[in-house]
């Protein structure tokens, strides 16, 4: 394993050369929101449009053949990246759609069953059934399940958190019980940085016959992840956080689970036969990809995966681990800074949320921005997690392959400047 050279990597990202706020160099520390894109991804997408653009799976001419090959080639490449087979990977527009696809399998099966359709009983929910999430979910893995509960009468439960930002597994056995039909948890928290013991929770789900879903948005871009190791039935993540274009995400599903899931979006390309009064559906993954797909984005994502493969995900993970350790240490040297989430570099990723005593997170972010440092402020789409830790919001720095110690140092200097500006240090 060779180590990464962020300075060399930076040169592959045109945006990172720009300046912001009156000519200051950009320090991009917001990759947990979305990553920047290397030239290779932009080139792949553009060259698809300039040479092979056509509606994939929908024509017999040469362009359509090439577009289909490009699209399915990207699927195979992405599947290989997570140790999966191509027909287990569904392309979605983002991770949120993937998680909704999973959730709608339950609400749709429940509604169809009520009207006499045959459905896989694993997906049909009734009052008395329970759905389990955690207190550190991104809204994308919380609100869809609230909606399923509201539409089926099932009850939503959650695994609580410990004070140091971990899942509280003490009462796992009482939260996940024989009423539980689905357990959906995050692999790496986008607000706390915590890496959860996904396998243990998925095993607990399977022990009671529940379907296990994982939100892998923040893990797959940052470390080697294999679908077999997670032990889940369905796993969602997005392309734009792993160097890929906006507008594309993925849902991996175990073959036998995808096979019996009712369709979600319906229309062209996902059907087998269509009559005026009824239709039959294609096998997965086509069943879940209605309409002209995001072909160019899939091609760009394929190039992103190639770029990451070339770096090596072990090297990416090692780089981030080292950088996170450095950032945690430097941040906690500052009086008044409190890290929300694990404070040491154990089972945690590179997203670091913190508060600064006496300054609102929004104002901390503004001072950093005025110095060219891009961070995120707010509840990070994990509002209940903020409430759990008694903060209205946090400031978050998050790194990726193009960040180095200098970027952390800039953030630290910016926080000290904010303290001075607001007269709290």
């Amino acid at each position: 394993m060779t180590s990464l050279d962020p300075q060399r990597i930076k040169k592959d990202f045109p945006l990172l050369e720009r300046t912001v706020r009156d000519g200051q160099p950009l320090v991009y520390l917001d990759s947990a929101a979305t990553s920047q894109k290397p030239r290779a991804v932009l080139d792949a997408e553009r060259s698809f449009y300039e040479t092979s653009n056509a509606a994939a799976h929908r024509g017999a001419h040469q362009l359509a053949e090439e577009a289909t090959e490009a699209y399915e080639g990207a699927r195979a490449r992405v599947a290989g990246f997570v140790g999966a087979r191509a027909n287990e990977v569904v392309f979605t527009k983002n991770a949120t759609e993937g998680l909704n696809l999973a959730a709608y399998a339950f609400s749709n099966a429940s509604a169809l069953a009520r009207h006499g359709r045959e459905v896989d009983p694993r997906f049909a929910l009734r009052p008395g059934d329970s759905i389990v999430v955690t207190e550190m979910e991104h809204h994308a893995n919380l609100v869809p399940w609230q909606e399923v509960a509201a539409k089926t009468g099932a009850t939503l439960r959650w695994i609580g958190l410990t004070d140091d930002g971990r899942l509280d597994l003490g009462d796992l056995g009482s939260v996940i019980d024989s009423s539980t039909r689905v357990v959906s948890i995050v692999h790496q928290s986008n607000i706390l940085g915590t890496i959860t013991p996904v396998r243990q929770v998925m095993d607990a789900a399977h022990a009671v016959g529940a379907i296990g879903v994982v939100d892998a948005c923040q893990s797959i871009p940052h470390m080697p992840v294999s679908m077999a190791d997670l032990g889940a039935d369905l796993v969602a993540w997005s392309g734009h956080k792993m160097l890929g274009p906006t507008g594309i995400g993925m849902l991996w599903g175990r073959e036998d689970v995808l096979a019996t899931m009712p369709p979600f979006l319906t229309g062209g390309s996902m059907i087998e036969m269509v009559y005026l009064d009824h239709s039959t559906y294609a096998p997965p993954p086509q069943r879940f990809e209605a309409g002209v797909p995001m072909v160019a984005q899939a091609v760009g994502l394929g190039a992103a995966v190639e770029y990451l493969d070339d770096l090596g995900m072990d090297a990416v993970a090692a780089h981030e681990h080292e950088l996170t350790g450095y950032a945690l240490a430097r941040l906690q040297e500052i009086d008044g800074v409190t890290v929300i989430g694990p404070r040491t570099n154990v089972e945690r990723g590179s997203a670091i949320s913190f508060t600064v005593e006496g300054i609102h997170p929004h104002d901390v972010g503004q001072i950093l921005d005025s110095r060219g440092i891009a961070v995120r402020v707010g509840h990070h789409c994990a509002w209940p997690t903020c409430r759990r830790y008694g903060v209205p919001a946090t400031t978050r720095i998050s790194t990726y392959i193009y960040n180095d110690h200098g970027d952390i140092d800039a953030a630290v200097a910016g926080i000290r400047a904010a303290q001075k500006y607001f007269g709290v240090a």
Partner: protein
Amino acid sequence: MDVDSLYQEIILDHYRNPRGVGLLPEPHGESHQVNPTCGDEVTVTVTADADGLLHVGYEGQGCSISQASASVMSELVEGRPIAEIHRVEAAFLDLMRSKGSGTPDEEVLQDAVAFAGVSKYPARIKCALLPWMALRDAEVKAGIPVEGGSYE
């Protein structure tokens, strides 16, 4: 970049020493507004007295801009005739839309002119408008006819 245009002394002062905090008892109208992206919150209560003067109280939590804006707003509108308040509201909305190029009317806006710099920061405009949206909504709930532009 210089953030002093954003964080005017008046704003920091209102943030550190907010005026008029507290909800009215049994208000005619009440509104709770949040900024869903950052979680800032403001609750505004209003009551119109027999002379057509508006009384206002508020509570909130959030960044310097949203909380200072609430404080400035309460000073500006408390105890004044409703028609006058609508003029202030309209002037403030115009200022926020000016992208930093407006010349605010100091006579109408008083301390609120300090928010001129905020209008250059799209993400912060919502912060400054939050208490004003709550005021507008509380007025509607109190049955007070409102006029002028929307806050969208």
